[in-house]
C-alpha cells in the first residue's frame, strides 16, 4: 500500500544526514528500513552491492536493468539516495560508481550474519515469565488498548454503553491532540478531519502514524529522536509471545516503553516488571499490510470472541450499494456509520446503504473517497473476496479482479469529485527556459524519477514535488554543455 509506506518514508526523508548516520548504527534499524521502506528493485541493488568490495560503476548498474524499466530503476535509486543508503563516488579512474554508505552497510551485514556484541535485536528474558502470557492474551490486550484509543477519538462511549472503556493515560490524549487528530474542548472530545482520515486507515498505517507523532513529540520534550526511533525499529524485529529484558534499555527508552504500553503496542504486567512483551502491533510494524491483515485486524477489528478462522473481514457490499457488516463492535459500527445510512441493527449484523447523501456527508467531514474505499477493502468479507476471485478467473483476462464492486468504488469517487474540484500539491515550479530542448530534458528526467506533477510545453514550465534532484540534473547538464 503506497499510503502505508509513504508516511514514515516522508518523515524519514526529512531527517538530517547525521540522524541517519546515528540511526544506521543499529543493525535492527538498518534491517527494518531495508525491509519496510524500499521498493523491490532497490532491495536488489542494495543486496547486490552489499558484499562488493569496490563501488559498482553506474554504467554497470544501468546495464543490469532492462531498458524498459528505466523508470523503476530511477525511482529506486532516488529513494535510496534520499534515505542516505546509496551514495555515488568516483573510482580510481574517475568513473562514477555507486556504493552502499557505511554505517548502513556494516549494520545490514551484521544483521544478516550476526554480530558479536550489539543487543540490537533485544535480549530474551528467560525467566518463568516466558509462559505466563500467551499470544492470545497479547492480542486481546492489544485489541482492547487500540480500540480504546480509537473509541476515544470517535466517541463510542455514547454509542454502546456496555463496553468497558479503557482508561487512557494523559500522555495518549495529549499525543492525539498534538497530532491534531482530536480537539479537546473542555470535557468534550471532537474528532478532526485528520482524525477521520486516521480512523479509517488500516491498523498498520495507524500505528505508524501514531509512532511518528510520538517521535515528533519526543523531540519537543527533549528526548533524543534517534534513541526513540531506533527503539521503535528494535520493537519491530522482536518475537511475538516472548518476553524481553528491560535492563539493557536506556532511561529514555524505558519511558517510551511505558508510553507505548498505553497504545497496546507493548505489554508489561506492571510498570516495574523486569521484562516486557511486544504485541502483534509491534512485531508486524515492518511487514506489508497483507502480512498482518489476517491475524491483527482479525483480532483487532473483528467481533470479540470470534477471532481465528480464515477470514478477517466482515463487510459485504453489493452492487446495489447495500452494505452488510457482521460486527457488534460499537467502534466499527460508528466508523461505518460515518459514510453509510444505517438501517437495521441485529445482534451480530448491521445493514445499511451507501448513498450520495451519506458519502457527501462523510466528505464534508474531511474523509476522502480513497479512505472510504480502502477501509471497505481492508475489511471486506472473505465471501466477497472469494466471489471476486471466482469472477476474475472465469473471465480470464489480464484484468485484476477487484474485491469491491467497481460500480460502487467508481461512484464513491465520482461523488467526491462533485464537490472536490481542486487539489493542492506543495512543490516547485520550473520556468523561464530559453529553449525547448533545455526545457524538455529536465522535464523528462523529472517524469522518470517520479516527481513531475504537471507540465506545459507551450509555456515551458513544469511543476515537481521535489526539486533537489532536478536541480542537480540541471547543474550536471550545464556542466556537461560547457
Amino acid at each position, binding site marked *: 500500500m503506497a499510503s502505508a509506506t509513504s508516511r514514515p518514508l516522508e518523515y524519514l526523508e526529512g531527517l538530517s544526514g547525521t540522524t541517519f548516520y546515528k540511526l544506521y548504527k543499529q543493525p535492527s534499524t538498518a534491517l527494518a528500513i531495508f525491509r519496510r521502506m524500499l521498493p523491490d528493485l532497490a532491495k536488489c541493488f542494495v543486496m547486490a552491492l552489499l558484499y562488493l568490495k569496490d563501488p559498482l560503476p553506474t554504467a554497470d548498474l544501468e546495464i543490469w536493468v532492462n531498458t524498459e524499466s528505466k523508470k523503476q530503476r530511477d525511482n529506486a535509486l532516488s529513494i535510496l539516495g534520499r534515505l542516505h543508503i546509496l551514495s555515488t563516488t568516483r573510482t580510481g579512474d574517475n568513473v562514477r560508481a555507486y556504493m552502499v554508505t557505511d554505517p548502513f552497510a556494516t549494520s545490514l551485514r551484521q544483521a544478516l550474519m*550476526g554480530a*558479536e556484541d550489539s543487543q540490537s535485536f533485544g535480549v530474551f528474558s528467560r525467566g518463568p515469565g516466558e509462559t505466563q502470557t500467551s499470544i492470545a492474551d497479547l492480542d486481546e490486550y492489544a485489541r482492547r488498548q487500540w480500540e480504546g484509543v480509537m473509541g476515544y477519538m470517535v466517541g463510542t462511549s455514547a454509542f454502546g454503553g456496555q463496553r468497558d472503556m479503557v482508561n487512557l493515560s494523559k500522555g495518549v490524549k495529549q499525543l492525539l491532540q498534538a497530532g491534531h487528530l482530536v480537539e479537546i474542548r473542555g470535557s468534550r472530545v471532537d474528532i478532526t478531519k485528520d482524525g477521520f482520515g486516521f480512523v479509517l486507515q488500516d491498523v498498520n498505517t495507524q500505528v505508524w502514524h501514531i509512532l511518528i507523532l510520538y517521535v515528533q513529540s519526543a523531540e519537543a520534550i527533549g528526548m533524543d529522536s534517534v534513541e526513540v526511533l531506533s527503539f521503535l525499529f528494535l520493537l519491530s524485529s522482536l518475537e511475538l509471545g516472548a518476553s524481553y529484558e528491560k535492563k539493557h534499555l536506556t532511561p529514555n527508552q524505558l519511558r517510551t516503553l511505558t508510553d507505548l504500553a498505553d497504545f497496546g503496542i507493548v505489554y508489561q504486567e506492571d510498570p516495574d516488571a523486569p521484562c516486557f512483551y511486544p504485541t502483534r502491533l509491534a512485531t508486524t510494524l515492518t511487514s506489508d499490510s497483507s502480512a498482518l491483515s489476517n491475524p491483527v485486524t482479525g483480532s483487532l477489528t473483528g467481533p470479540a470472541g470470534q477471532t481465528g478462522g480464515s477470514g478477517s473481514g466482515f463487510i459485504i457490499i453489493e452492487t446495489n450499494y447495500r452494505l452488510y457488516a457482521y460486527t457488534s463492535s460499537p467502534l466499527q459500527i460508528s466508523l461505518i456509520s460515518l459514510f453509510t445510512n444505517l438501517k437495521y441493527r441485529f445482534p451480530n449484523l448491521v445493514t445499511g446503504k451507501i448513498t450520495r447523501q451519506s458519502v457527501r456527508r462523510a466528505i464534508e467531514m474531511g474523509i476522502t473517497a480513497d479512505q472510504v474505499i480502502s477501509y471497505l477493502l481492508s475489511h471486506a468479507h472473505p465471501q466477497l473476496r*472469494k466471489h471476486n476471485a471466482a469472477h476474475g478467473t*472465469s473471465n480470464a483476462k489480464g484484468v485484476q479482479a477487484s*474485491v469491491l464492486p467497481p460500480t460502487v468504488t467508481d461512484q464513491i469517487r465520482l461523488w467526491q469529485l462533485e464537490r472536490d474540484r481542486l487539489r493542492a500539491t506543495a512543490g516547485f515550479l520550473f520556468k523561464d527556459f530559453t529553449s525547448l530542448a533545455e526545457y524538455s530534458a529536465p522535464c523528462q528526467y523529472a517524469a522518470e524519477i517520479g516527481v513531475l506533477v504537471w507540465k506545459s510545453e507551450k509555456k515551458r514550465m513544469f511543476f515537481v514535488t521535489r526539486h533537489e534532484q532536478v536541480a542537480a540534473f540541471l547543474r550536471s547538464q550545464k556542466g556537461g554543455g560547457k
Partner: protein
Amino acid sequence: MNSVDASEHYELGATDLSPSLLTVIIDTNPHAWALLENSLPFSKAVANILVFINAHLACNYANEVAVVASHSQKAAWLYPSQNAPTNLANADQDGDVQMNGNTPTPQTNKYRPFRIVEEQVTRNLKDLIDSTTGDDLRSNMSTMLAGALTLALSNINRRTIAWAEEHGGAALEDAAAEGGASGGGGGGGVAAAPNRYSASNEDERLQSRILIVSVSGSSDSAHQYIPIMNSIFACQRLHIPIDVCKLSGDAVFLQQASDATKGVYMALSEPRGLLQYLMMAFLPDQRSRRHLVLPTRVDVDFRAACFCHRKVVDVGFVCSICLSIFCEPPPGGDCMTCGTHLDVGDYHARPALLPRKKKKKKRVNGASGAGTPISTPTPGP
C-alpha cells in the same frame, strides 16, 4: 484529476505484493565436495548460503524459505524440519549447533527468524552427515537430485494452497467447482484448476522458486534422468523457475531445467565468490526479475539420457509411439517402455549410406528392382 479513471480500481489489489517462497536444494554429495575442498570448503559454502537465505528473508516480512539436502543416498529436509523442537529454549540447549569449530554466537544479537533457520539447517545437516556411513559412500557416488526436486515441489504445492486459503482472495478450488456446477462454462472447470498458478493472477499467488546449488557431475545423475525431467516439466507447468548455481562439473539436465523454466543458470568460475554470485544473480524474486537482465545460458546442452543404459547420448533412437530414447536399437525391436514392436530392421543400412551415395543412379534402379513397399518412387534430387 485522473483519480477517477476506470483503470485505477484494478490496480488497488495489485499493490499488495505477495511474498515469495525460496526453496534451496543443496547438493551434499561428499565426493564432489571433497574435490572442492581447496577452493570452497563445504562449511564455508553453507555459511554463504545461510547469509543468502537471511537476505531473502530480510526482503519481505512474509517471505518463506525451505532447504532440502540432496545427499548421496537420500534427499532430506533441512528446513523446515518436522522433528524440530518447537520450544525456543530447547533449540539453544542441545548445543550441537556449532559446526567446524565455529563457536555458537551469543543468542541475542541475531534476528529471530534468521537464527531459527540457521540452527535448524546446521543441526539437520550435522545429523545427516553423522548418519552417513562409509558403506553408503562407497556404494553411491551420485546425488539424489530427483528426490530433492520432488520434495521441493510437493512443499511448494502445499504452501501455495495453504497461502491461497489463508488469503481468501484466491480460493480457486471452490471457484473451479462452482464453474463446473453451473455447467455453462463447458471446459471452464478444467481450465480453472491449473489457473491457481497461471499468469492471470501472477501477483496474487505465492511466488515460488527453486535454487539448486549443484556440485556433482552430470554422468552421476544420468540414472535419474526420467524423474528429474518429470520434475522439470512440472516446474515448467507451474511457472516455478529453477535457478542453478553450478560450483563444479557441468550438469546436462540442470541446464535444461533452467532453460525450460526460465530460471537463472550460472556456472561459477570462481567458487570462492559464491556469496556475491548468490546476492547478485539469485536473490531477485520473480517480480524484480522483470526489470533486470538475467544471466542465462545461450548454448544449452539439450542432450538426453537413454532409457536403457542411462547413458547421455548425442544421437539416439526414439520410439515413435511413446518417445522413449535408446542408445541402441532395443533387443528384438520391441520398445522397452511401451512394448510396441518397432520396425528397426533397416537401421544397419546407416553406415552403408556413404558408399551408396556415390552410385546414386544405380541405387534408384536397384531399389525399384528390390521391390520396396513404397509404391511411388522418391523423386530424385
